[in-house]
């Protein structure tokens, strides 16, 4: 599939350091993938999670709140159902 359109860059200046493709995967798998892999990127950089499970749309920001990472933005993929969810590693 085509790469999704980038969301409005307001809120973060740099490109995501990591993309996690969780399209077609049901919760909690997208959250597990995010939790497992956020440690791979430098602190202060952004992880992009692609997901189409409606639970991921709310669980990714909720997970960020619990784990004190920063939920930056969500953008509809547009071409296909789903979202690009942006998380900044805070520590």
């Amino acid at each position, binding site marked *: 599939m085509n790469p999704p359109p980038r969301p409005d860059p307001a809120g973060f200046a740099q490109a995501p350091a990591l993309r996690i493709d969780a399209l077609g995967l*049901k*919760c*909690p*798998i997208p*959250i*597990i993938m995010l*939790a*497992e*892999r*956020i*440690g*791979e990127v430098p602190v202060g950089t952004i992880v992009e999670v692609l997901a189409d*499970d*409606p*639970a991921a749309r*709310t*669980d990714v*920001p*909720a*997970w960020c*709140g*619990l*784990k*004190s*990472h920063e939920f930056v933005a969500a953008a509809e993929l547009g071409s296909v159902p789903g979202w690009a969810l942006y998380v900044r*590693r*805070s*520590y």
Partner: protein
Amino acid sequence: MAYFDAASAEPVLPEAREALLGALEDGWADPARLHTEGRRASLMLDQARERVAAVLRCRADEVAFTASGTQAVHLAVLGTAQLRGRRGPGHIVASAVEHSSVLNAAAFAEQAGGVVTIAGVGSDGRVDVAEFTAALRRERTVLACLQSANHEVGTVQPVGQVAAECQAAGVPLFVDAAASAGRRPLPAGWSLLAASGHKWGGPPGVGVLVVRKAVRWSSPLPADARQAHRAPGFPNVPAIMATAAALEAFDAGRDVADLALRPLTRQIRDQLPRLVPDCVVHGDPALSLPHIVTFSCLYIDGEALVIELAKAGFSVSSGSACASETQQPSHVLAAMGAITHGNVRVSLPRGTAGEDVTRFIEVLPGIVGHLRGRGPRGREPVAEPGSAAGLPGRIG
């Protein structure tokens, strides 16, 4: 087996069973008929209305019995929503955490040309009163909808405060009291109410609709003269009698049950986060229903958790998407900004044994650990908490 799903249905009370059997003998006839058998059924219906009205603190002629709580909600919302505000189409205000029957009825009214405003809630599930009342429009808003307490997380809503604001704005307030009826008294000031008999130990299939005097409401359904044109069809008088008997008994035992159940849900609320890594308990611990406690365990599938708990002898429900008929996550948890996966609602019926709750707390950590180790649906196992930087369990 321990049944911990009272918020879905309370086990039928002995008072209800007795009333049901008695009324099957004498209350089977058509209460709309003038013959002896019909009058007997009609008297029973009147008596049931009086008994329910006494508990709900309204007048008997304001009470109608429906086929379910959901039907009572639909009638309450649509029977008001079809009225037009003086300044354009009817406007409905509802909290984001209403039961799906309320939100679906509001959406139905919206499709018919109405306008709906949804008011948000805090992370404890309590409606934002300022946002809710700011949405009220004098002469435009035909109905405000606020539940008495939340059915998923148990948080009690500020009905008294919202009722005062609604009265000041001249807007009728509909209260879905299904989660709390017979469990806590309702503040005054509401205009319409819906409730459901199986939540207080009555038989399934009886709802209660209350429309206060002077409230503008008319049935959205085809004309039917039964129950003062409020609820159509031949009423199930025996089940209605049982529902009234159950409500009376349930309400009479309210304070005792509160004292017995609240320490048990508190035990779960206090202990699970200490015993289970990455377990979050939802809702407001202070102002909540005594029998409900809801939590989410990160990184596991709610459906798998419900199934494993059932194998261990515990019947619970879940707001996780995978555990729902619609495959949608709980709109209540989502509106609270809470984790929706790995979710369990424990709701204790009256008479729950403390040992059962203790055993639940004992078995849950092992079940969660097992499911996390197995990984969801055959994926690679998830690392144990704290085993490496950035892995699940690293608490910020």
